[in-house]
Structure formats: C-alpha cells, structure tokens
C-alpha cells in the first residue's frame, strides 16, 4: 500500500511575473496578504504540515524567486516536483497565453515519468477584480480540457481576499498524493547525509492543520 511512501511533497508554482504566485503561497501557508507588489524577493520555499486521510503530509511549496522573469529557472528547481500549480491573472490575457509555454517548460525540465497524467492544477487568480476580467472562465476550462486525457483542474481564487485558496491547494495535494502513490518504487538509494540540520528560516512559520476529507 501507499503507507510507506515518503510524506514530503514538493510542489512548484509557475506562471508569469505578477500573477500572484507568492501571494497565493503566503495566503495558504501564513494566512497573510500584502497589497504591495514586489517582484519576488526573499521568498524561497514554504513548508506546511497538513493531515490528509489521517496521514501527516509535509508540503514544500517552491516559489520561483523571481527567476521566471527572464525564463531562467534551472533544472534543480523543477526536479522531483510532485505537482505543478500553474497560475495566471484573470485580468491579464497575456499571462493566460503563456500557460502553454510554462507547462511545456515544466514537462521538458522535470521530465516526469508519465507526462500525460502529471498533476497540474490551473489557478485563475485575482477574482477580487472581477470587473476587470479579461479571460473568461469558459476559455480557461477549454484550455484545461485540451491538455491530455484527463482535464486539468481549474480553480479561481483571490489571494487578496482568501477566496478558495485553501481549496485550491487541497486539490493540488490530493492530486500529488495520488500521483506519488502511482510512481514505481524508486531504486534503492541509501539515505543522504545531513551536512547541517539547521532548519530553513521558513519552517518556523509552518503550521499543522487538519484538512480531512
């Protein structure tokens, strides 16, 4: 059974600069939102412990650290991702049009075993600015349907007003867990050594909460 699978899930968030990747992550993990836009500085990865189906799962959510601005994310960023969250801004059609290239970039760099069934989730962010919407829900759903045999899940959120952020990540985690359970067992690799057991500065912010379903 899946019980001996590792409980650490690496999740990466991709999308154009300014769509709200860091805000979504901060809202989900720290329940915080800042109105001041700063091209991401200082965001690394956030970790969050969560319980799903009585199992403790540690999420490690990686931000792009601003390296997406000139498409300069390296292979180590993508490596080992268990799920990928694609984000666009519903008021910015260009950020929607870039989704294909972000998805392709991910599949190329991460080279998952089963690219057709790799868990992507699409987030249309900034629904708090509904009046400025330039990408229809219909168009986004159409895009999700056109990728692979099973449609990509689509959720519209507001990181600013904490609308559906929790639910979006829950969806991501569940898909990541299913994907992780379907992976062939890895070849035996002995445990790596620990150079330093010092925790990341962000782990102190992590919280345990329950998301039983």
């Amino acid at each position: 059974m899946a019980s001996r699978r590792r409980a650490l899930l690496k999740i990466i968030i991709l999308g154009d600069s300014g769509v709200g990747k860091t805000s979504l992550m901060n809202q989900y993990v720290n329940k915080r939102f800042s109105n001041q836009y700063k091209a991401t500085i200082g965001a690394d990865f956030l970790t969050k412990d969560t319980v799903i189906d009585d199992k403790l799962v540690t999420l490690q959510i990686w931000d792009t650290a601003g390296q997406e601005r000139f498409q300069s994310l390296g292979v180590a960023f993508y490596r080992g991702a268990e799920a990928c969250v694609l984000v666009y801004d519903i008021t910015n059609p260009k950020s929607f049009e870039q989704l294909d290239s972000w998805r392709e970039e991910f599949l190329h760099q991460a080279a998952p075993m089963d690219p057709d069934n790799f868990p992507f989730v699409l987030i249309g962010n900034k629904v708090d600015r509904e009046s400025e919407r330039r990408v229809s829900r219909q168009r986004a759903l159409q895009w999700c349907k056109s990728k692979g045999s099973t449609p990509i899940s689509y959720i519209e959120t507001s990181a600013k007003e904490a609308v559906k952020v929790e639910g979006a990540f829950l969806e991501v985690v569940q898909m990541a867990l299913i994907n992780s359970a379907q992976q062939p067992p890895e070849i035996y690799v002995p445990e790596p050594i620990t150079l330093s057991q010092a925790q990341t500065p962000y782990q102190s912010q992590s919280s345990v909460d329950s998301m039983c379903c």
Partner: protein
Amino acid sequence: MAEHEGKGGDGGEVPAPRPDWLPDGCEMLADGEYDAIVMGTGLKEAIMSGLLSTLGMKVLHVDRNNYYGGECASLNLTNLYNKFRPGQPPAPELGHPTRDYNVDLIPKFLMANGNLVKMLLMTKVTRYLEFKTVDGSYVVKGGKINKVPATPDEALRTSLMGIFEKRRFRNFLQYLAGYDEQQPDTFKGRDLRRMTMLQLYEDFGLDENTQSFTGHAMALQRDDTYLHKPALETIKSIQLYVRSLERYGKSPYIYPMYGLGGLPEGFSRLCAIHGGTFMLQCPVEEVLFDDSGVAWGIKATMDGVPQVAKATMLIGDPSYFPSRMVKPTGMVARSICIMDHPFNGTNDAESTQIIIPGRQVNRHNDIYVCMVSFSHCVASPGKYVAIASTTVETSDPLAELAPAFELLGPVMERFDDVSNTLTPVEDGTADRCFISESYDATSHFETTAADVQSLYERVTGQKMDLSIDPEVEQEEG
C-alpha cells in the same frame, strides 16, 4: 520559450526616463543599473553573486547558455551528445536520454570539512541540496588500486607498505593528529614553519612510496614542489583530509545527488531570493570600457535590439572577457567514460576517487579519476560515470590518460576534452573586471574555493569569513 514581459498584470506603468549613460540606439538590459554584473553561471561566479547579493548588492547575473553551470554544468545524455557528438543520438543501451544522467563536465568531490562545505553552510545553500558520501578514496601503486590509509589503524592494515614502514607511518599520523598550531607543546621540538615537508618525512623515516601517497592522495598536492616548502601547509591539508574522513567514515569526500550542477544553481537561487536578476540565454557580446580602460557595463543584442546594463564591477569567467585580459596557464585533458561495472579492487564501490601519483607513471602531474554512479542519481541503474583528468605535459594529451584507462577496463562510451586553462592578467582593482581562473585538473574543490576567496577579497576588500565550523553546525540540529 517565447518572450514575455515581466511584471504582468498591473499595466499602465510609466516608463522610466532614459538614463544618460545609455548609448544611443540601445535599450536597457533588464533593470539597467546594477552594483555588480556577473557573467557565466559556473560555480565560482554563482558563489560570488550569491554572496554579494546577501551583502545587499544589486546583482545582474547572465549566462549565454540556456542552462545553469557553464563549465560546471551536469549534462543529461542528450546534451552530452550535443556537446561531444553533434548530430548523433545517444546510444539507447545507456538509458533515458534526458532523465537518468547528470554528467559533470568538470569532475570534483567536496572535502567534508573543506572550504566549499563551509561556504554552503554559511549561506544555507545546503537547504537546496542533498549529499552522500563518496564510498572510497584510493591511490595507485605499481598499477594496483589501494585504499588510502588515513588512520593509525588503517596504516597497520594497508598493503601499501611493509611492516616497519607501517609503524613509522603510524607514528607520523599520530604526530599529525596531535599537532596544533596554537599549542607549542604539540610541536615536539619541530618547527613546521621552517622545516620542509621532505625534512619532516625524513625525520619520521618515511620512504618515497609513503611520501608519494601521503603528499598526493592525502595532502592533495599536484606535483612534488611541496616537498621543499615549509611543512605546515601540507600538514594542515593532511589534517583536513583525516578530519573529513572521520566525519562520515568511508572517505573524506562527499558529492551532491544529481551531480555538481546543483551547486551553482543553489547559489544562484540564493542570489535570486535576495533580489538578483537572472538571465539565461543572454548573448553577451561585449564588455564596455570607458576612455581610461575601466569597465562599466555589458552589451547584448536580443531580438535585434542592442541592450546595455551598467555596473560598478564586472565578475565573470575568462570566456566573457577580451582575450588580452587573460593568459594561458596550461591545458587540462579530461575523459568522460560511461561504464557498466565498478572498478576492480574497490569492493564494488559505487563512487570513488582514485589518484595516480605522477611519480608512479613517470609524470610530473598526477592523474585523477572520479567515479560516480546511479547511487548519486547521475547515471541510469547499473551504470557508472568515471572521469579521468590530468594537467597536460606532452603534445598527445589523451595518451597521457592511458594509466587511468587501464584501471577503468572496458567502457561503453567515452568523451574526450582538452582545454586551455586561463588566469586573469590583472587583479581587477584598476579595470573593475574580476575574472575567475579556469578549473584545474584536481578532483576536489579546494583550489576552486581558494579562487573564490581571492575574488571575494579583491571585490569587497575583505577576507571571506569562513570561521563556521562544519562539525559544530552538524551537532546543533
């Protein structure tokens, strides 16, 4: 990927006024003005940009390739073939063309207590990487592979020496273990600042063979010039080797999962989270100098538009600077071999370092072999990647690696490379160009770390603080 603008979303931004330094007909490259522009994402450049950004400097880091690492990249099979055998697809029996392999172009191991590890701990770049120990450290004598004996116990068990020599070597190791530069009572009447290493060896009655593996496989000297220098530096190197070995037990070396390419990428991410701007695939065509010969910026043409960025200093590997600014120091020959078996005589170790002291094969310079495999996730299951390297001495560089090929046995595929090593002519204080040295043939990072320390000191005017103690850090938890 297609080009897309930064800072999407909020539209309606007022364009900044055109700065007066921007030459006519040129646009700003990225944000235009920076404290430092770093060119090439090799390990040395990546450590520098990471450190400078943590000091609060605004850094633009560019690379002409579409991947991180420059000469220090770890390539998958497809990229490896593109580089060495353009137009030829990878042999299917080797494994998956993009997933299984991460082959280093410059093979090196990290000394567990060495300066690169200190830099990783100091910057916490360790959080992006996983390391595993290297299974064994070996030295060749009379064509045979022997484990390097580094503890008094191992000294007594090794087949490298006869029974009396073993005791003398054990005495030598015990003296070293007790020696502390700060405590004169541990000197036992020897002044290692004045005594040469050869005199110290002779004082302990060690023969040439023992001197050879001690100096080359433990102190990691590249030739025999150290024999006539004061013993202290060599003694410190041996102590580093012994303490690194005691750390994890199997060998003094560690190596990152998925190859060395993760190192420059980790330091680059450190720079990015401190606000550094990264541009891969940036075709830098020119370093810009003012009338007095001081560098002030770089130019790159993208989508037909010449773009310029300005900075108070430029840091980079030699390939980004005009050839008049660097001079050759020699050549390195490297051979990357993919094999389906480990080395004979290493207990089937899945990763090893083997040093062939020059003297063993009538050479001046040592030959190094680094072998890693699937156990560090750099090759497909059952495959091994061994890289032999040496400093070139003749007009037939690859023939010089023959003693290494003899150890390897049959190989499935072999990629050869001979490259010039370059060093900067000036130290950069006058022209603001801080240029790194090419990577040498050594199979460890100690010389690399020394060059980074030198760059750091030239750039900041301060010595790098490497006082962090890897062993203390480990115990903190």
